[in-house]
């Protein structure tokens, strides 16, 4: 029961993320070429699409932590938390280190 629930939630997140970001990317290109707003708005729409794209797997991992916790699966709650921490290190610490490296 619980496991089916987990699969459905993850399925929903991935599906919604992929669809939303594809819509933003397409809207960005169409805006650029077909409307008077031109590349500035188009560029922002595309960046939004890319951010949604990036956020999708991160959301999938974050939500899984709570779902493993709800299943009272301590080991996998910890494992999934480690994965999220790794991703957060990549997002917040690595670029910072990089700029110290080569300013």
């Amino acid at each position, binding site marked *: 029961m619980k496991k089916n629930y987990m699969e459905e939630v993850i*399925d929903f997140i991935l599906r919604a993320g*992929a669809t939303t970001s594809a819509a933003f990317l397409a809207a*960005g*290109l169409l805006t*650029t070429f077909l409307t008077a707003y031109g590349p500035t708005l188009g560029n922002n729409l595309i*960046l939004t699409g890319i951010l949604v794209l990036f956020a999708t797997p991160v959301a999938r991992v974050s939500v899984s932590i709570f779902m493993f916790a709800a299943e009272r699966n301590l080991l996998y709650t910890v494992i999934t938390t480690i994965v999220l921490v790794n991703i957060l290190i*990549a997002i917040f610490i690595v*670029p910072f280190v*990089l700029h110290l490296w080569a300013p």
Partner: protein
Amino acid sequence: MISVFLSALYILIGLIAGLVGSLTGLGGAVVITPVLSLLFGVPLEYAAGASLTATIATSSGSAVAYIKDKITNIRIGMSLEIATTIGAIFGSLSAAFVYSHNLAYLLFISFGLAVLSSIYLILKKKRTHRKSKEDWSTTAFQLRGKYYDKSTKEEIHYSGIRWWLGESVMLFAGLLSGLLGIGSGVLKVLGMDVGMHLPIKVSTATSDFMIGVTAVTSSVIYLSLGYIQPFLAAPITIGVLIGAFYGSKVMEHEKAGKIKILFVAILFVISIEMILRGFGIA
């Protein structure tokens, strides 16, 4: 300079790459990066940035079908992502170092070699599921699972072994992902199939599922260094999504045999070209 023509061309490239990627099982990035860099003169880092973006999209899009069929083992995937994310961090840091020191030729060579070995692994595949003796990690990391096989109409129970071996292979897969801007799907499947003795269907589905997280971890540096260009990444990603979707449809019909051989031959030529380019010959 953004032109309608160039965008349409990028969508077309993405479309073909997505098709080739899903038909050969090698993923789209393997085609995008060489085509953009060899034929269109796009610098390798921008080509890799665009292909990583497309890789994330394909993973989110294609993982869905397998999760619905309950073939993906979410637990095993999650536990192996510890290693792929750590590998991806170090791989992308290495890529940043290589690009800032004008050593891109090393990556052309590595990319070519990675594709060549992937082709080799893809061609010698078709391992059947073997029952193997469970070890301590089977219980410790909860590596048992089951799925319903549509083609044989039976429920398959399996248990993974050698978790540490799978984890080691994933570290390397993550490293390559960050370094070359690819999803490393072939290596991931190998780690689960040969390393952990998981059924090939489970390995493939779980690999697709994992690629998104690995690629996002790799991509952050590409994004922060400005290697992901919106007007290159967007059309490529849209094209790949469409191509991968149709590729999976063709795959279901199993008519793909001859096209697949043709694509593998093209990939072979591409990887040789990449290596030659790395040595400054092409």
